[in-house]
């Protein structure tokens, strides 16, 4: 009778959570390390002050040349 009691006690203990062997967690791939884009380091050059030294490839260059020339008027 005592053996049966001990057996039942052992079975109950084994069924308790503490004895549950944790299952292998589902494989979840590690979040990919976000490869931060390497930003080109902008090295500020000397700001242009002479409009005639600009290369007029884009319209923005022409606008800059206009603004710089008008600055010369205001000086």
């Amino acid at each position, binding site marked *: 009778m005592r053996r049966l009691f001990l057996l039942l006690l052992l079975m109950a203990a084994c069924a308790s959570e503490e004895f549950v062997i944790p299952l292998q967690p589902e494989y979840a791939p590690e979040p990919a390390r976000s490869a931060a884009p390497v930003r080109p380091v902008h090295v500020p050059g000397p700001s242009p002050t002479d409009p005639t030294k600009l290369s007029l490839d884009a319209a923005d260059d022409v*606008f800059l040349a206009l603004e710089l020339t008008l600055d*010369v008027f205001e000086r």
Partner: protein
Amino acid sequence: MRWGAFVLLFVLASSVVAATCDERPTLHKRVSCRQETPSPELVPEACMVPGKQDACVDLYRRSWQCYTMSGLTKNTCFREQARFTSVKNADDISKCDYLILLLRDLQERVEDAHDDGSITLEQAADLITSIAQIQRQVLRGEPASSIKSTISGFKQNYRGIMR
């Protein structure tokens, strides 16, 4: 004889088109007409400022080859044609001439965009009209701050259309 008649007809037709555009009552309508039916412009719209016309037409005539160039070479050409020797020593006339040439460069870009179908006739006419108005402001000798303010507004419009 047939060729002579053909040439005469062509010359007459061209002069009729030119006269038609020149007779349009507003700057915008004249610009739009010329853009639609390319015709020689006797006096550039930019130059229609009393007392400045001859010098302006002369600047236009002698600087045409600059617009076949690009980048820094073009800018150097503008500087030479405007006699803009240096920023420190340039007189007001050469600075004004240089501004006129730069503005005309923007006009060339607008015309090219219209020719290749990137922008509509109306958009091209709007931008070219604004450019001519700014050029006239420059020739009238208006204050730099006022011209700067007009250019600032125009730049937004230009960027919006010429994307």
